[in-house]
């Protein structure tokens, strides 16, 4: 059992455990904090996969922005300091069954394809794990410029939409006194 395998197993276990605690935690803020642990675990896995730029972007975007946004929203939408009411639907057992069926199907599919049993990663031909190539490909008109620009338009639309939706209702104009 090499060191990398041990690291993978520990990280994978922590990520999964955090994921289970996200969906099972009774208090919402605890679920948000467990989500952060899970996101950090995925960042470590990205590092194991030699995608270090994506790992850093994961920490900055997911943990540094999205998770904080989720925590803010969870804090702003609670009537009292403690959560009230059941946290799961009455039909949660049906959700469990469907999740398990989905898992079984995916595992059966994965373990069938022989190419996926590849023992180790192929050598990495790009020197800096593709960082320069990633940058050039995003602005090259023949490669991925269009998805890049569409993604930026999407982000602009989301920015304007979120501000427009979350704005408090406009108060009526005060009389000139």
């Amino acid at each position, binding site marked *: 059992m090499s060191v990398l*395998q041990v690291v993978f197993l520990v990280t*994978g276990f922590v990520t*999964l455990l955090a*994921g289970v605690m*996200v*969906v099972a935690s009774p208090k*919402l803020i605890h*679920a948000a904090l467990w989500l952060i642990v899970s*996101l950090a675990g*995925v960042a470590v896995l990205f590092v194991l*996969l*030699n995608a270090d730029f994506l790992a850093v*972007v*994961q920490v900055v*975007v*997911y943990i540094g*922005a*999205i998770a904080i*946004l*989720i925590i803010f*929203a969870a804090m702003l*939408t609670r009537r009292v300091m403690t959560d009230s*009411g059941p*946290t*799961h*639907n009455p039909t*949660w057992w*049906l*959700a*469990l069954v*469907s*999740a398990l069926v*989905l*898992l079984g199907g995916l595992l059966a599919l994965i373990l069938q394809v022989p*190419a*996926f*049993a*590849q*023992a*180790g*990663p*192929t050598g*990495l031909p790009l020197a800096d794990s*593709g960082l320069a*190539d*990633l940058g050039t*490909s*995003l602005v090259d008109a023949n490669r*991925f410029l269009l*998805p*890049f620009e569409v993604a*930026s338009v999407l*982000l602009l639309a*989301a*920015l304007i*939409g*979120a501000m427009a*939706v*979350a704005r*408090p209702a406009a108060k009526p104009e005060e009389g000139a006194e």
Partner: protein
Amino acid sequence: MIPLSWYLTLSALLFSVGVFGVLARRNAIGILMGIELMLNAVNLNLVAFWRYLTPTAIAGQVFTLIVFAVAASEAAVGLALIISIYRRRSTIAADEINLMKW
């Protein structure tokens, strides 16, 4: 060395946990967290495939970056909607927001 199937199994497990979260949670923000777990599982899958099968084709990492952008924008708009709903209905439990017109 770590076989590819280990990464794919981990991502399948994470995805199923996210599916359970989306289907079983009552709180709208809890559902959103399940969606984030699913998107992370997908990202993990994409990067694992990129690294093991086609490390020269940078499309794997580009796809992951686009998924990051989509996840960020969807989280922002979703949370803005949830806050707006909370302001009017004082609740964000998914089964209590069940009137089309009020």
